[in-house]
């Protein structure tokens, strides 16, 4: 292969290297999932892999975890700045987990391995970020819903070398492992992450050998330029102007006040500026997003409404500017607690972007998502396994918002991640649990011409003598938004709180499910830490649906009928919100009654159901 001169781009070579590096990121992830210990890693896919160039700019990523992918860019840059490129040598591996230096939350570790040419030039950096099950802190498995400082959330490791010239730096490993509750599994997961970097290194070396350093560097630059060009083209299609929206989080776990997320998106020719000025000040509880999270989720939102085929890398980031005032909930100052910033506040960031953009590209956005990762963690000591300590992290999928021509997808992981749920059969093997229920929730999707997706109900019974649990969830007391006449999901009125997403506990087999506010007098119904559960207690995790899109009275009655038949919509709601009358026995549509009811409801205005 000839050495390429500046400006002399062979588009074929560009395509070959571009798709090759994405494939490589994918391959790194697969190797990692297959060798990791934790279920959250191997089954849950709570990790991400990407390739950075010698300038610490992201060149390629595979389809893993969106919230990681943007923020990783900052983490790699930070590591290189702090340690210094000059101090890097072949065989080094860098690690860090500081949320305030491009991290996400403290359980997410970024590790990276600089790869050099034979002449010692830094060419590329394969990197991955993975969620480790426990990093110390006040609660097993993290996610203390009542944390007020990052120090309570776990141990912070600044950018350090954990491997130097191919040799493990054992002192650092000792420090990390003596600060976590389950050192064995954590170390095994780190092994899997390191193994995946080795694969990355090997393949980058092949590229260097095949193309030569100059050509490879040239094309890595061109890959970013290409994406930048595409992203700017996409943004140019949007009308210039500023579009605003706001939405809220329930509370921060400490005080009852809702937290505001406000965005003003300005389109200026081929540039998109997302300004979060006006969002709440940083909060006391663990709902603070760091700048990395806010930027990640802004990119995430933009990618979702532009061209999904657009290769996401640093080039795209050049066309997007993120303004997040320091000291606010979208760019908190150290030492704020941040666990939920990465999983809850982040979710709301994409939602407000959708709401803002619905004003100019309604055909490309979706109504509100169920709006949480519904984080549920905990741990204990399992006497049946010889007193072995255990920790878990599970999250729950829910319904997404309806779209211009399609219903919202049912039971999907929030925008924030692209993780997989963890199989019940594997969890029960690993933890002293019995899962009692895992079903879709009737009537949870917001009514609309295109209905919101459906949420889930998951019940776990605890078999251990004592288990500690932690909860961070949201949108329990506020609904996701509907769009263009579509309604928010209809709340479950029979409850004191938890109309939408919900967590309830049954302390023993004979008692009732109750909210933590009722059981423990907590201020928040959605955030808690270190709740002790006795043997036989159960926890119910409910995620709700997404908002509807378009007037539900315009929904094809046959689709309503199908929803009723399949138990997605009740007969009652079909009548009240969709104006479709269905015979309870035959499940046939009563066409004249439906026509009459619809015309009546239509005359009565479209705001029915909003009460």
């Amino acid at each position, binding site marked *: 292969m000839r050495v390429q001169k500046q400006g002399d781009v062979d*588009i*074929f070579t560009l395509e*070959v290297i*571009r*798709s*090759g590096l994405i494939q490589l990121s994918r391959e790194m992830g697969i*190797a990692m*999932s*297959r*060798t*990791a*210990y934790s279920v959250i890693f*191997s*089954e849950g*896919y709570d990790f991400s892999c990407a390739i950075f160039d010698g300038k610490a700019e992201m060149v390629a990523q595979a*389809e*893993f*975890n*969106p919230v990681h992918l943007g923020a990783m860019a900052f983490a790699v840059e930070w590591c290189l700045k702090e340690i210094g490129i000059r101090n890097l040598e072949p065989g080094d591996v860098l690690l860090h987990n500081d949320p305030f230096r491009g991290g996400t939350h403290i359980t997410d570790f970024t590790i990276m391995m600089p790869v050099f040419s034979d002449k010692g030039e830094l060419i590329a950096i394969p990197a991955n970020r993975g969620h480790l099950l426990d990093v110390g802190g006040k609660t097993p498995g993290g996610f203390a819903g009542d944390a007020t400082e990052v120090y309570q959330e776990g141990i912070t490791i600044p950018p350090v070398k954990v491997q130097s010239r191919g040799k493990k730096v054992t002192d650092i490993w000792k420090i990390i492992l003596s600060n976590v509750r389950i050192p064995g599994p954590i170390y*095994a997961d780190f*092994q899997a992450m390191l*193994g995946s970097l*080795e*694969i990355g290194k090997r393949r980058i070396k*092949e590229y260097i*050998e*095949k193309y030569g350093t100059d050509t490879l560097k040239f094309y890595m630059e061109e890959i970013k330029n290409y994406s930048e*060009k*595409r992203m700017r*083209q996409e943004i140019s299609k949007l009308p210039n102007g500023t579009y605003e929206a706001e939405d809220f989080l329930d509370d921060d776990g400490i005080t009852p006040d809702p937290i505001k997320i406000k965005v003003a998106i300005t389109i200026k020719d081929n540039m998109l500026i997302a300004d979060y000025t006006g969002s709440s000040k940083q909060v006391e509880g663990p709902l603070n997003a760091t700048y990395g999270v806010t930027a990640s989720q802004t990119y*995430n939102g933009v990618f*979702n409404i532009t061209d*999904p085929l657009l290769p*996401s890398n640093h080039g795209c980031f050049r066309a997007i500017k993120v303004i997040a005032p320091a000291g606010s909930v979208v760019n908190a100052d150290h030492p704020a607690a941040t666990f939920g910033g990465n999983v809850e506040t982040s979710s709301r960031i994409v939602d407000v972007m959708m709401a803002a953009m619905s004003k100019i590209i309604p055909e*490309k*956005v979706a109504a509100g998502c169920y709006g949480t990762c519904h984080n549920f963690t905990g741990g204990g000591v399992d006497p049946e396994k010889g007193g072995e300590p255990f920790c878990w992290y599970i999250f729950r999928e829910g319904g997404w918002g309806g*779209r211009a021509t*399609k219903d919202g*997808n*049912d*039971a*999907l*992981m929030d925008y924030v991640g*692209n*993780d*997989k*749920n963890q*199989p*019940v*059969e*594997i969890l*029960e093997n690993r933890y002293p649990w*019995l899962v009692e229920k*895992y*079903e*879709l929730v009737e009537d949870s999707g917001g009514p609309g011409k295109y209905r919101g997706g459906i949420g889930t109900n998951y*019940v776990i019974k605890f078999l251990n003598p004592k288990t500690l649990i932690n909860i961070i969830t949201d949108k329990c007391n506020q609904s996701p938004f509907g769009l263009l006449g579509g309604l928010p999901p209809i709340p479950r009125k029979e409850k004191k709180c938890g109309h939408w997403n919900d967590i309830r506990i049954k302390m023993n087999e004979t008692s009732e499910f109750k909210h933590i506010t009722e059981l423990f007098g907590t201020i928040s119904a959605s955030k808690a830490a270190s709740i002790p559960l006795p043997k036989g207690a159960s926890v119910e995790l409910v995620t709700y649906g997404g908002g509807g899109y378009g007037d539900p009275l315009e929904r094809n009655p046959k689709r309503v009928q199908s929803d009723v038949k*399949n*138990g*997605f919509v009740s007969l009652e709601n079909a009548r009240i919100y969709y104006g479709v009358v269905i015979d309870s026995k035959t499940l046939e549509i009563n066409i004249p009654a439906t026509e009459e009811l619809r015309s009546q409801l239509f005359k009565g205005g479209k705001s029915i159901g909003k009460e």
Partner: protein
Amino acid sequence: MAQVIGIDIGGTFTDLVVINTETGEITSVKVDSTPPRFAAGFFHALEKADIDLKNVSYLVHGTTVATNAVVERKGAKVGLITTKGFKDVIEIMRGNREFHYDLQWEKPKPLIPRFLRLGVSERLNSKGEVVIPLNKDEVKEAVSYFKKRGVEVIAICTLHSFMNPVHELKIEEIIKEEFPGVFTSVSAKILPEIREFERSCTVAMNAYVKPVVIKYIDSLRRRLKEKGLQRDLMIMKSNGSVMTPKMACEIPIATIGSGPAGGVVGGTLLGEEVITCDLGGTSFDVSLITKRKPKLTTEKDITWGMPLRIPQVDVLSVGKGGGSIAWIDAGGLLRIGPKSAGAYPGPACYGRGGKEPTLTDACLVLGILNEKYFLGGEMPISKDLAIKAIEKKLSKKLNMSVKDIAVGIYKIAVAGMVEAIKLVSVKRGFDPREFTMVAYGGGGPIFAGILAKELSISNIIFPRNPGVFSALGLLLGDVQFDYTRSYPTTIENVDLDKLNSILNELEDKGRENLKEESFEKHIEILRSADMRYMGQNFEVNTLIPEGKITQEKLVTLVERFHQEHEKWYGYRMKDERVEIVILRVSANSKQVIKPTFRKVSSTGNLREALKGKRLAYFGGIKDFVESPVYQRDMLKAGHIIEGQAIIEQTDTTIIIYPEQVAKIDEVGNIVVTINKKIGSKI
């Protein structure tokens, strides 16, 4: 005259191969497939080949009927009985998305709608112990609900049934009593393996295709018998073995991927360590053969989110086929596939109305294909149309000449194929340089030479009939039964008596089943264990040493596992505890009917095979170079051709690249060796 026949029905073509067992002569025909009534194509092929079924001693069939039913969503009305509280597992799926940023993406719907999924009270824990006994009345109610709604098949999949099938079997028993005649699909019988979503999906898929496959096979058998076929036909399985129609009707999903599996099995005839490359109309399929056995996998998805967890020949399929469309994306990059022009309208050069330029069109422009000799001249193609398509759709936008773009299409396609080969080899711990490449399919032989060069592979074999090689491979499958049993334990805690008794039980079952189907000869038993380091969630399949397992043999097994793990993932953890998760036993009856091929004559001058010269592109930096063109039928054993050269035959075009030397072996295969020191390292 005795004949053996292989018939492979793919989505586009139906291929038939006949071997005359006395002379070893092979003939073949290719006809259009006739979805969804595939049987029409089957009999059309027999007719076209002028077969008298009375003379046929053995007929093997590879079919796409099941795949087609799943992909087209044209299967049966299925009901599901599962553990109460878990009826939505197959709809919730794994909660993840195919693309991480595509808001318009649509989550696939399950094969069984929600109103046909019912939970019944019952529960086992993870050890397989009964926590809640089965409520038989609820089962009866469920069955009567399904009966009323005209359900054709009932799938059964309850939690942890792979540890203890007691509830599933009882449910099946009740169904048989309450609803005689309805088909069932039971997870403990089909896939006794952990992970409820994947298992449910596999079981649902099996149920979904059951009536379609049974109907199809019954009608084939009836008509074949009418036409005088003496011995019942055999069906190729996704794992490369063959089965009786009865077996196929029990586990119909085992027919999925049987056609491509045939090609890979065919490859076993040509070498111990083989990489097979099959380039068809829509995809490039690669797989690996080691020690003359195709590599198997249990982790393939039919489409995204539709996992099929039964053992299948590990064929990696990428969307770079002859019909793959070249297009320019919004950023001005040239991309190929995954959209394909298929057979209709097909590449622009077919003149069937296709306007999009494809890989085939590029090959025609590059002189690799011959306008006048496509399918032996049976099918006229037009270079002008190919040029026009590239000009109109690509040339203007890229401001490049048609020829340069054709070169670009060629290069990008080759890079994609190289990646695919690396995925099945390097990335799984195999060095492609130690393998022989076997290339077939209409397009495989065009690219094999350049792929071998890129990967530093030194030997390529082009079989006698590359275009119908999969159909030929069907004839080579053995009869095989596979059994699995979950036996989760750490190595330290292995109960040798129990381990041996499970293995013996499964082996006995295998021998018994083979006997039932009257395959008692040449029996081979293969035993393996899915193992992992304690705590990992994925396993590495490891061969169990032969004979009764002793403490010593256990040590051998663990060492084999370490080796395999290192091979796949690049490292071993010698201090970690190792566990067994699943035991696998295959009982195999070697098929005695192996085709013997007729030797080709060794008299004749190479010059007689030379039919002309033409300018063509050979993948180098240099432009077109002039190359001799040979007619394959005229080549004789012992002939040697030095690259660059083009060899044409009716079903494909073979390219011998510069610095490659082709030799015709005694049965007419073309064996290419490549001078060392050429091509880049891996």
